[in-house]
């Protein structure tokens, strides 16, 4: 059996695509990455289609089976021996003490640790946890993406022949050339990886867009244009005008490496589309009038063995703002993935085009954004993120807002909560207390850290300004509980945002104010999740804003 496996592994070695270790966490074990692997005792390396696996096998191709102490494992690997480690895409099975685990890993042995995205099953004492991990044996603990690499993102990256990928929260590098391979986009499952050097053509480069950042000012305005990387978008080689030859995702630095097959000398170009189909980045930016995805094409070039094509999405093309909108979505979804372990938020469609006059609003997993030059929201990052905040409420929390117009005047507590929360979400995403909405005359801005709005609605059911909500949330999620001006951090923001999924989403609300989610219910959730150690600090805040919270959260009343 082992001999057969070794033969199969060696035969497949040259065809193996060396991928990233994708396992992020829990639940199931077994399975391996797409590193050269193989089979028998002390044998390392192994190819696609390898089956079986002996004791001490290391690595593993797209194989099945796995012996005792097997490590690594390829795409679609099944089975797994005792103490198997690593895990590949769609790995199934898993032996006792299996560790690691790839995307969609299923099964898992006793004491399995690690586990990939969508891991299911899991043996006794399984620890860690993959995104969307389900099942889990006796003693299984938690789940999540605690080992994400925020700077790198889920796509990995190539720099020449060097692959950067994420292992347990650490960006790890691998020179593909040492295995006589190239670094390039591999597949939707593996993203950038070490791949076999073939006769295919390769084109690489960087995609950027012209950004104009909002100015922190009460008079609004946008800064001068500066290029930013287009991260996570689809980038394709197009032959002629419309034939798609190959598609990849851009890395977080905007870089891409694409392999394609074409007739030498054929006219091709690079086209970048404002969409990601990764579960963690289920985002698309479309025209508001016809549902088409926004795309920008680079210059023509001739198909050849290697080429470099940098693409800048220009403001004058009326497409740069679409990619800025896309980037705000990436910012928010990556944060949810990295900080709240939410790997597959409900897909979000953002709609904008130049002169779109359908207003700026969120509804049913779609965001519409104004596009006229007189009031263009395409570069208004806080406006975009405010609307994404409404999506976050829908996707992971709860909103009972009736909707409607709102400024800073007192309104229905449910509307004020939803709007104030969404503004706080936008500010926290940018780590800045400035909100701004630009227009032809500059627009307006407001700083929420030092401002103090007060409540004068009488009872807890009274109308309240959304600014009271935003200011109180900002102060509550300051890095320290003090009177001094502080900015939120990822950790302090996460502690407050977690109230949405971990309390408001499922809790039976007290409804001492207006029925439905409002600021009272958030504060209840804050104390339920964070204990009553912050009673004094929250009392300081509610007193400052003259909000008559009763500090009587369920099972978490302040003394």
């Amino acid at each position: 059996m082992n001999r057969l496996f070794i033969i199969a592994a060696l035969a497949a070695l040259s065809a193996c695509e060396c991928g990233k270790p994708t396992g992020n966490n829990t639940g199931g074990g077994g399975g391996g990455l797409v590193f050269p692997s193989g089979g028998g005792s002390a044998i390392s390396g192994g190819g696609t289609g390898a089956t079986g696996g002996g004791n001490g096998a290391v690595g593993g191709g797209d194989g099945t089976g796995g012996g005792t102490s097997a490590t690594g494992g390829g795409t679609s690997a099944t089975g797994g021996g005792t103490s198997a480690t690593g895990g590949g895409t769609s790995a199934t099975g898993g032996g006792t003490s299996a560790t690691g685990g790839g995307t969609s890993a299923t099964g898992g042995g006793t004491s399995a640790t690690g586990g990939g995205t969508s891991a299911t099953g899991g043996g006794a004492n399984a620890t860690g946890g993959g995104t969307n991990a389900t099942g889990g044996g006796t003693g299984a603990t938690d789940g999540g993406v605690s080992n994400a690499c925020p700077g790198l993102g889920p796509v990995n990256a190539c720099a020449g022949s060097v692959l950067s990928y994420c292992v347990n929260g650490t960006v790890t590098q691998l020179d593909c050339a040492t295995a006589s391979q190239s670094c390039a986009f591999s597949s939707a499952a593996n993203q950038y990886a070490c791949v076999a050097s073939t006769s295919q053509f390769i084109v690489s480069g960087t995609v950027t867009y012209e950004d104009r950042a909002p100015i922190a000012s009460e008079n609004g305005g946008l800064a001068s244009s500066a290029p930013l990387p287009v991260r996570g978008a689809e980038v394709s080689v197009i032959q002629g005008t419309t034939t798609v030859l190959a598609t990849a995702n851009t890395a977080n630095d905007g870089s891409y490496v694409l392999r394609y097959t074409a007739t030498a000398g054929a006219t091709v170009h690079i086209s970048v589309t404002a969409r990601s189909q990764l579960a963690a980045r289920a985002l698309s930016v479309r025209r508001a009038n016809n549902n088409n995805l926004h795309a920008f094409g680079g210059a023509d070039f001739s198909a050849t063995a290697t080429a470099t094509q940098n693409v800048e999405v220009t403001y004058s093309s009326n497409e740069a703002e679409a990619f800025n909108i896309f980037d705000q979505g990436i910012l928010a979804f990556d944060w949810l993935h990295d900080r709240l372990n939410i790997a597959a938020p409900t897909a979000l469609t953002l709609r904008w085009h130049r002169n779109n006059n359908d207003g700026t609003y969120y509804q049913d997993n779609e965001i519409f954004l104004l596009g006229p030059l007189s009031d263009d929201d395409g570069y208004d990052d806080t406006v975009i993120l405010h609307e994404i905040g409404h999506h976050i409420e829908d996707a992971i929390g709860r909103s009972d807002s009736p909707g409607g117009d709102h400024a800073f005047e007192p309104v229905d507590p449910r509307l004020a909560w939803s709007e104030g929360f969404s503004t706080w979400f936008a500010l926290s995403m940018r780590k800045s207390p400035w909100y701004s909405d630009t227009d032809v005359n500059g627009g307006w801005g407001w700083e929420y850290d030092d401002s103090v709005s007060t409540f004068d609605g009488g009872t807890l059911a009274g109308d309240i300004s959304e600014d009271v909500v935003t200011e109180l949330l900002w102060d509550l999620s300051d890095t320290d509980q003090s009177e001094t001006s502080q900015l939120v951090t990822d950790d302090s923001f996460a502690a407050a945002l977690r109230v949405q999924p971990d309390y408001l989403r499922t809790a039976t609300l007290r409804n001492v104010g207006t029925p439905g989610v409002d600021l009272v219910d958030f504060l209840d959730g804050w104390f339920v999740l964070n204990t009553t150690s912050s009673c004094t600090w929250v009392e300081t805040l509610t007193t400052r804003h003259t909000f008559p919270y009763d500090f009587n959260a369920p099972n978490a009343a302040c003394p």
Partner: protein
Amino acid sequence: MNATRLAGPLCVLLLSACQHSSERAERKPTAPVKLTLETRSLGNGDHELTLTATTTAALDSLVLKTGEIVKEFTTLENGATRTIRARVHIRDGEGQEVTGTARTVKGERQRSAVTAIWLGVKPPEQPTTVIPLPDGEKAEEVRE
């Protein structure tokens, strides 16, 4: 096609500062004022602009602007209405986006609102190419 023919002898266009397709839409924060901008053709390419603002909160100050006209109103009650008028000229065969804007002040808070109407010939649509993607979606590509 000139601006006069486009506008018609008495074509009144109304646009609110916020247009929304759903009653339950979660809208962006606005200024506490609603704007309408009306245009009336006066012939020979001349148009009268009428900007009307209705406050949705008591304000310390409201500055309205349309065309070359700018006017400030102070100490307004919630629901107060103020109007300014201006004239613009659109040359034959040309077009222009005309705007009506408001800046509100209440205490330390300033906010602004805009409404706009296009008069005359609209600029040509940007040329695009629709690329059918392998999954059946369509990408609309702009190239420069």
